[in-house]
């Protein structure tokens, strides 16, 4: 209790630093820049922060990190915009947002989807900040317990909670996921240091970048599909209603249970640090299972936007904690920020909270203020962004194509990636036409590598014995949850059969 009271005193001082008018101005600038960065797929928060990092060296460390973290928040908010409007996730953790966000936009409810996404982001982030404020040191301790086996268990749970949740037959889900694993295996094998499946092609050294695959599969694939359907965006009929924010807010409290669950999943994933992507997928998967509207997920269910957005942002925010307390960045953006900290003469690590208390609590206070400033800013843009869909498809499609191409190029500054994006676009189109779900493929590309790595690291450590995945309470309980999630569809089917059998068919 003493510790918590002390934290509040420190936080109070932090607010004094963060609410300086100059710092508030920096927050607003940062959020706006971040939103722009987030809207452009491929540019991403990490690049944005890296480009602007040198500009901040003349500021005090606290002001500098306020500006940079606000760019990060802004990019997190902005990633949702393209996911909802154009089915192009700008960041890995926005993929799950497209599942219901884009169908909502297509049925004329883009404003609602965006409002739900932004508000959920805010709720998730806010929850994580409160957690950081209250129990930062304890949380850092928890993160230390995650070795390779525990990490694999988390990835396993993410995959398991996703299997069997799509409308398509399970066999197709498995096929799609396996294609994803195969693509993820291309490039350097981290454990042996050997190249795999590159066939001597130097462009393949880096493997298939997730963003290239996603921009192609979702963005280009979507455009091809729309062209076939007659050059028309169905979102065109969207009415622009300035009160849409207020109206959506009135419906949101209904999903408090989903929000709370996603917040907890997000914080947990952010700290471990498995990251925001598994968090968003896991939250979506579980919400689909548990919600009574679960069957309608994928057709534009607002709860399907709330769950992944809340979790992704809780995770994104919670990931700052391991960076500060342990010096391990939970995301590429956090890695760039880490570089910044070092230049300002701050050494992240266990002593940062002790030696640089003013900086740390100023930063935490700025997270509170920055998120509030950010929410207000992005909500005012909702009608504006929603109205983009009123532009005729024949004009907007080439613009999207150009944005996709620029995005794909920016990832590695490589023209080959733009070609790859086109190939993925055609692949995405074919898979959609033949009713193979894209989500498992994307999940496998994103997490396949890390999951394989964690699995092999665990086995190296245990001398090849699988018992390592049941070797302590933590790893066993996560694995146990995973197994239950994996066989849940079977249980569900059995229950349904039992229920259905008395009724005449």
């Amino acid at each position, binding site marked *: 209790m003493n510790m918590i009271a002390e934290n509040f005193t420190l936080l109070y001082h932090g607010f004094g630093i963060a609410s300086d008018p100059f710092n508030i101005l920096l927050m607003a600038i940062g959020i706006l820049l971040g939103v722009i960065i987030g809207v452009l797929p491929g540019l991403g928060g990490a690049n944005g922060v890296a480009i602007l990092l040198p500009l901040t060296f003349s500021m005090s460390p606290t002001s500098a990190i306020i500006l940079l973290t606000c760019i990060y928040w802004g990019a997190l908010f902005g990633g949702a915009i393209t996911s909802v409007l154009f089915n192009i996730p700008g960041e890995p953790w926005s993929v799950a947002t497209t599942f219901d966000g884009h169908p909502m936009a297509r049925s004329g409810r883009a404003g609602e989807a965006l409002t739900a996404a932004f508000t959920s982001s805010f709720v998730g982030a806010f929850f994580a900040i409160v957690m950081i404020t209250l129990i930062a040191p304890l949380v850092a301790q928890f993160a230390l317990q995650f070795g390779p086996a525990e990490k694999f268990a988390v990835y396993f749970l993410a995959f398991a909670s996703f299997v069997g949740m799509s409308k398509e037959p399970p066999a197709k889900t498995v096929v799609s996921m396996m294609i994803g694993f195969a693509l993820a295996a291309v490039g350097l094998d981290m454990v042996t240091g050997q190249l795999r499946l*590159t066939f001597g092609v130097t462009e393949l050294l880096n493997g298939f970048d997730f963003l290239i695959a996603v921009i192609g599969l979702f963005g280009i694939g979507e455009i091809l599909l729309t062209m076939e359907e007659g050059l028309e965006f169905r979102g065109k009929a969207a009415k622009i209603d300035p009160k849409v924010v207020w109206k959506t807010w009135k419906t949101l409290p209904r999903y408090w249970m989903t929000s709370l669950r996603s917040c907890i999943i997000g914080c947990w994933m952010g700290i471990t640090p498995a990251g925001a992507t598994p968090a968003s997928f896991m939250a979506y998967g579980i919400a689909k299972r548990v919600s009574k509207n679960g069957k309608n997920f994928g057709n534009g269910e607002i709860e399907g936007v709330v769950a992944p957005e809340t979790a992704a942002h809780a995770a994104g925010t919670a990931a700052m904690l391991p960076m500060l307390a342990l010096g391990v960045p939970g995301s590429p953006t956090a890695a760039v920020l880490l570089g910044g900290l*070092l230049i300002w003469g701050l050494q992240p690590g266990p002593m940062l909270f002790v030696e640089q208390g003013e900086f740390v609590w100023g930063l935490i206070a700025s997270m509170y203020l920055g998120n509030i400033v950010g929410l207000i800013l992005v909500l005012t843009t909702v009608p504006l962004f929603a109205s983009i869909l009123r532009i005729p498809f024949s004009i907007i499609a080439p613009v999207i194509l150009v944005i996709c191409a620029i995005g794909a190029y920016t990832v590695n500054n490589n023209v080959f990636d733009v070609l790859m994006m086109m190939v993925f676009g055609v692949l995405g189109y074919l898979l959609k036409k033949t009713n193979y779900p894209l989500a498992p493929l994307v999940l496998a590309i994103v997490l396949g590598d890390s999951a394989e790595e964690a699995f092999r690291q665990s086995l190296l*450590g245990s001398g090849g014995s699988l018992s390592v995945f049941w070797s302590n309470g933590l790893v066993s309980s996560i694995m146990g949850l995973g197994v239950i999630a994996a066989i849940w569809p079977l249980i569900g089917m059995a229950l349904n059969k039992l229920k259905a059998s008395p009724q005449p068919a």
Partner: protein
Amino acid sequence: MKYVSTFGLGALTALGMTAMSMLPASAAWEPTKPVEFIVPAGTGGGADQMARTLQGIIAKHNLMSTQLVVINKSGGAGGEGFLDVKSNKGNPHKIVITLSNLFTTPLATGIPFNWKDLTPVAMLALDEFVLWVNAQEPYKTAQEYEAAIKAAPDNTFKMGGTGSKQEDQIITVAVEKALGKKMTYIPYKGGGEVAVQLVGGHINSSVNNPIEAVSQWRGDKLRPLCVFDSKPLPYTDKILGDLSWSSVPTCKSAGLDVEYLMLRGIFMPPGVSEEQVAYFVELFKKVRETPEWKQLMKDGAFNQTFMSGDEFKAWLDQSEATHKGLMQEAGFIAGN
């Protein structure tokens, strides 16, 4: 310069630039557009941190007339970055920072690349390696840890490191040879992750670079046992209690005869002119005089050897031979 810029028209400017490049090199060469700074490793690692610090120092002190843009090309253990520089023949607006993967990546993966495909600019520093254990372990000295490894069966002790068939694993193999016992080597993506896994007790030891683990030492989570260098480190600033980098003994003095230093150097694409190389050598000499650089060297306990020109090339030749020998012994060469 003035003459050219007054025109301001694209075509004429291009013409002017061509004319300028044909002028005799009376004025020293200077970059005319942003310089790409390739990092053949991921974000957050040692090379990336150094590159971003350099970028910051150069921007803060206005050492360059154009911008320096850091780009990570980490694919294929850095092979992607090196091949990119190799293929940009004659492009003076591109530099690359290297780590040991300059030698190890082509040897381990068979990627068609050798350091001689690039133009060496300068050695900025050499990075040290330290043997670390968790501070809660009973081993206070390297000797005690060595004795424990020797007393246990093969593969009891787990050594964590960055990547596979790279510097950390090379050192691990050398340690195994010196002790006559096998250890289990577990590769991770980055040095920071290795340090945290060691703090969490998931591995028994690491050979982290000083900068990757110093904050964990300051927080009394990790303990340095010995440094893989021929003489102790010169830095005497207190880190934990009365201990400083200079109080860490060499591994050789602790009965573990292994030495390894890692290059932090700058290269350019092939086919660049001597003035262009000279420009960057001068640039990095200026960087070395800044307080920020000196602080980085101190924080990371770097070995501050600076080399350029033929001296640097001779060093590279010798270092390549050393790596080849080490990797051959360990069976890390591609195709074996």
